[in-house]
């Protein structure tokens, strides 16, 4: 055994008798090295502890109509060091893009540039109130105008509504505009057609707007069955909602034909733009006959997902729909920029308080300006290239659902796991042990045991090769019947599989003070 100059061993010691490494003991603390156990803030703090210094004030006469809050609220406080430690410890239980490949299909988990964060925090953007006099926010209105210009140019559409708060909110905006346009021409229609591969938000949105949803089947090549779609089109159909590239990661090759058929039936074409990352700078939805489409700034334009938001879902509109766009919107006048907040009679109305997700607008514009027209096209190409590289590298050991090439995501199904006893879920959990966030699983619904892999353009070839090596290894082992690593996976995550059934059966949705022991 090698020793340092103080006589300490410089490598782990093996047990002398068995030759095995020192066994892991259960710790007294509950911690395991860097895996620090961390209770709820309610178990750490007290209602009398605080991490802020608030000025002391003398008694004064309250004007709250005798409605003071007398009862205890129960919110715990911690001093600042403990707050920092609590949330730092929690953060280390999370996987994020910053830690590794995050190939979650449909979600476009690309790198989140830090310049964007810095720009959004400039006091001139982050510390302005939405109801300040317009003379004091001209730069903000100019930024919104500039972002609108980038979005309409990239999409080839004449107008954009910035205010929707996320993708699903954008869908609501788009379908409402469609309904408003139909009602304006006295044309009541009842049905929205969605392919069966659609995101769940599509049918949910259509139902919100008072429409019945009819499903359109997919063809064997993963595209919408254009013939079935045309057969379903008549004067009761208000809109068709199609994701393009679609949720199987494929470009709808008959899209213009479909758009023509939709318009011939007097209906509108809503395009779910969740997958715009594959085609930005490569093809403009405006050239494909789209009437309305939302963009997810938190997917395509790199604003962070933040563990579930905030997002931002601007909607672009065709000439036929642009008069029905929501308020508010910015207009340029002789004396500078102005906001139209009311009084537009054709507008579908207001979808949110104030002007939408300004913080996301700044980040998205920062990203667009950084990439420029050339970089945006290159990003789409690299995203598609990375996905096809995955498809080509795994096609022989996993079962690709459709013939290539794909767009920015590669879809596999579970045929390659047939008779192995390993499920898509098991496979996903084994990816966690490999140090990766799993791909999207069991979506889209049109293939069995779907695995939707979206690497994005911000992964290097080295990262892709490492990832592919893991996936090949897992697929090969599963098919060889070596299923132990799948059955209990993940083994190396800080938690084992969590019981979702128990959580739903007896929901515990908040902390309550434990009853004192008798």
């Amino acid at each position, binding site marked *: 055994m090698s020793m340092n100059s103080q006589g300490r061993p410089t490598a782990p010691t093996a047990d002398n008798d068995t030759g095995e490494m020192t066994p892991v003991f259960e710790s007294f603390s509950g911690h395991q090295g860097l895996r620090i156990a961390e209770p709820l803030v309610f178990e750490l703090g007290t209602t009398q502890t605080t*991490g802020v210094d608030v000025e002391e004030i003398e008694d004064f006469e309250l004007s709250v109509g005798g409605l003071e*809050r007398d009862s205890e609220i129960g919110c715990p406080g911690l001093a*600042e060091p403990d707050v920092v430690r609590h949330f730092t410890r929690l953060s280390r239980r999370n996987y994020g893009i910053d830690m590794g490949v995050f190939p979650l299909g449909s979600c476009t988990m690309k790198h989140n540039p830090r310049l964007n964060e810095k720009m959004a925090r400039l006091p001139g953007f982050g510390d302005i109130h939405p109801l300040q006099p317009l003379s004091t926010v001209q730069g903000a209105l100019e930024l919104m105008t500039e972002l609108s210009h980038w979005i309409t*140019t990239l999409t080839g559409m004449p107008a954009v509504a910035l205010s929707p708060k996320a993708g699903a909110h954008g869908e609501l905006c788009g379908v409402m505009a469609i309904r408003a346009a139909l009602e304006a021409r006295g044309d009541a229609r009842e049905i929205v057609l969605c392919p069966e591969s659609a995101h769940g938000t599509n049918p*949910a949105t259509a139902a919100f707007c008072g429409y019945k949803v009819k499903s359109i089947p997919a063809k064997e090549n993963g595209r919408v069955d254009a013939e079935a779609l045309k057969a379903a089109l008549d004067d009761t159909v208000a809109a068709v909602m199609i994701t393009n590239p679609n949720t199987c990661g494929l470009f*709808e090759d008959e*899209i213009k034909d479909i758009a023509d058929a939709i318009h011939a039936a007097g209906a509108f074409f809503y395009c779910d733009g969740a997958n715009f990352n594959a085609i930005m700078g490569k093809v403009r939805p405006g050239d494909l006959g789209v009437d309305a489409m939302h963009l997810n700034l938190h997917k395509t334009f790199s604003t962070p*997902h933040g563990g579930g938001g905030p997002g931002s879902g601007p909607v672009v509109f065709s000439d036929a729909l642009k008069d029905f766009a929501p308020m508010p919107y910015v207009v340029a006048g002789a004396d500078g920029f102005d906001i139209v907040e009311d009084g537009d009679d054709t507008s579908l109305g207001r979808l949110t308080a104030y002007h939408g997700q300004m913080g996301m607008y700044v980040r998205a514009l920062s990203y667009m300006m950084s990439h420029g027209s050339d970089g945006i096209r290159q990003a789409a190409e690299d995203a598609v290239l990375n996905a096809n590289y995955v498809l080509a590298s795994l096609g022989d050991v996993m079962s690709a659902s459709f013939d290539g090439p794909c767009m920015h995501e590669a879809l596999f199904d579970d045929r390659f796991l047939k008779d192995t006893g390993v499920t898509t879920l098991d496979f996903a959990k084994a990816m966690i042990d490999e140090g990766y966030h799993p791909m999207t699983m069991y979506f889209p619904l049109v293939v069995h045991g779907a695995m939707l892999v979206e690497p994005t353009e911000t992964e290097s070839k080295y990262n892709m090769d490492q990832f592919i090596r893991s996936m090949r290894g897992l697929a090969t082992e599963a098919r060889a019947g070596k299923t132990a690593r799948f059955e209990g996976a993940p083994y190396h995550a800080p938690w084992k599989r969590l*019981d979702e059934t128990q959580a739903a059966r007896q929901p515990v949705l908040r902390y309550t003070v434990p009853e004192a022991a008798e």
Partner: protein
Amino acid sequence: MRYLPLTNDDRQAMLAKIGVRHVDDLFRDVPKADLNPDIDLPRHQSEMMVERQLSRLAAKNTPAGSVPFFIGAGAYKHHVPATVDHMIQRGEFLTAYTPYQPEIAQGTLQYLFEFQSMVAQLTGMDVANASMYDGSTATAEAVMMARRVTRKKKAILAGGLHAHYRAVVETTTQFTDDVIESLAPVPSDPGAELQAAMDAIDDTTSCVVVQNPTVNGSVMDLAPIAEKAHAHKALLIVVVTEVMSLGLIKSPGEMGADIVVGEGQSIGNGLNFGGPYLGLFATNQKYVRQMPGRLCGKTTDTEGKEGFVLTLSTREQHIRREKATSNICTNSGLCSLAFTVHMSLLGEKGLRQTALVNHKRATDVRNAVAAIDGIEVLNSTFFNEFTVKLPTSAAPVVDKLAADGVLAGVPMSRLYPGDGFDDLLILAATETVSEDDIQILAAKLKEALS
């Protein structure tokens, strides 16, 4: 291009592996005529150049922190401790997705559980969800939830509801079965405003929506309207646009609310010109399965270790599709983390004291402006905001003061144009307002009105 790691050699090697010669061979399903259009936009730029241009735009705006600042009306300038922004910028939080894989998302899930618990405590309700987009969209969702719960259609919006919130409810429900009865604001008599809402309740009412404090700042006792609503099997929805007020004022739950929605921006989140903000949504246990949005719940893993998962997802769009309780998917995750970090710093003690300081500052401002000839304070109750009547139109006065470097509140006509409120001004004061600021405001107002 600094965000793109692939080299041209990499690209060639990968194309060879795929078995195509050119990247456009991968785009073969795109109509040829439409592929690679001219995009008339600037080319890529360095970080320094982008920063320079965006900073120039930012410099054209007047930050709230740079001037005496008295604007509220649903978004508030509070001091956010440095720790908050530092924690939310940890990459493990910032760059995570919705926690679909709970084994590697316990950080997000635990703070969501803490967030839900804190919101439930603050609002005085049983349970809260993991956030909505903002207070206004949460209000629209609450109205639709009340319809599902009561199977009745008439929603009454009390006059004291923020104009934007009212508009969002009206817009969002325009194609649903809901029937919205919007009552007129009565800024000079909040009691009459509330009475009108009470009088409108009947057996067809699904819910009555009341904001507290009202858009004009008045603090109302909601117990009587809760009682009337419940007598007609309608729900009381309470909207709180200034969540800091819950550190001083009796909670909606204590006054009988069935659903509480609110804007959580005041805690942990900046003004951001209106977004991203943080929608709060809380209700009682018996209505949980009719709630919109994500819910985080406690469970155990296969070794019995306690942990958290997203739960009751059979309400949601990705499972229920057109039968979902809402179409919401992405919500305000990182804003709810900011809220949770700030709340952990405040604790009950810090929250109550901060709320009290807000009330004191607003009292000081009230006293200062009430002493000016021609200004009439309309409120007898308030938290950190109140409405005054000027002897002239408020908007030009506010513009004049803005030109003088004072952001002196929101003219009510900005929110209710053409409704005859031109002479009303809504003034807010938080803990960030100094005594000097108040003196400057009073002096400039006096000057503008003389």
